[in-house]
């Protein structure tokens, strides 16, 4: 599974398709890539963006669990 799909798979049930997709695309753009060319090395900025997106609306423990799930999906 590619990185973009792995992140979207985890986020979609919680924030919906549009927001999950926007989060991945915005991160890719910010590092000069597209969603499809993201690789394992881009995980830290992706996780950072997920944290920024969710911190105002979800408990920290939830965000940690979602990020752990993303890392498991990617591994």
């Amino acid at each position, binding site marked *: 599974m590619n990185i973009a799909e792995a992140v979207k798979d985890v986020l*979609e*049930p*919680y*924030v*919906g*398709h*549009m*927001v999950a997709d*926007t989060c991945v695309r915005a991160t890719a753009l910010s590092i000069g890539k597209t969603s499809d060319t993201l690789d394992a090395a881009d995980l830290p900025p992706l996780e950072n963006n997920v944290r*920024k*997106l*969710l*911190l*105002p*609306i*979800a*408990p*920290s*423990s*939830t965000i940690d*669990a*979602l990020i752990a*799930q993303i890392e*498991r999906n990617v591994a």
Partner: protein
Amino acid sequence: MSGRVLSRYTVLMVALMLGSVAVAAGLNYFPVLGDTVALWAADLGSVAVVGLAAAIVVGTAYCFGKGQPGRLYWMLVGVGAAMYALGDLVWSIYELAGNEVPYPGLPDAFYLAEYVFLTAGLAYAAWSYRSLGDIKMPLALSGAVGAAAAGGLYVWFLNPLVLSDPEIAAGEKALGVAYPAFDVFLAFMPAVLIILMVSRLGWGRFGWPWWAVAVGVLFIAASDTAYAWLAAVDRYESGMILDYGWMLGHVAIATGALLARDVTRVPRA
């Protein structure tokens, strides 16, 4: 999907609150135990249900870490509900002691205080959800909807029934205007704003709590406006069906708070 997300605790607490509303309404409309029990059930039933709802919402605030926005916005909504429960308690003390409840009076101070906390909570939640998208358009749309609602309220209710009636005392007139105006600007408008913000999530779970909260706020706003009208024409009586609108509104808000706990629980893989 929702069957797996909802916890047993949520189902139990919602059933408990709805059951309490049903018992209070049943004893009030079928006073088999006498009129005194019916009045106690109507008054104290509301204190108990809204008090429990407030405790649930405050409990949800503590699911968020110290300094996280979620702790503050749920806390504000919970304190707002607690203000209403206190207003109902003061109302009950007057009524159950056989005294006429003053209008305007101390209960109104608590009821009006709920708006301040509820509005602050909803507005801060909407502001927090701006991490998911721009807030300007939802703000403009909710402002337009609020202005239209306020205009309709003025033309069809406030002007003909409250403001132009010389027989209504100044204090009553002020409250008769304050309740519906607060309902529009401090309850309805922020509820529309938060719904527009979370509608971006589609069926995403993090939006679910706010749909329930918005339904609750609409119940409360509709009940308040009806109360202001009935009080203005001297036809309000304790135990009317209207009282259950307030209770159900707070049950819906507490349901939103319970959902907020459930949807943020990530299952272990």
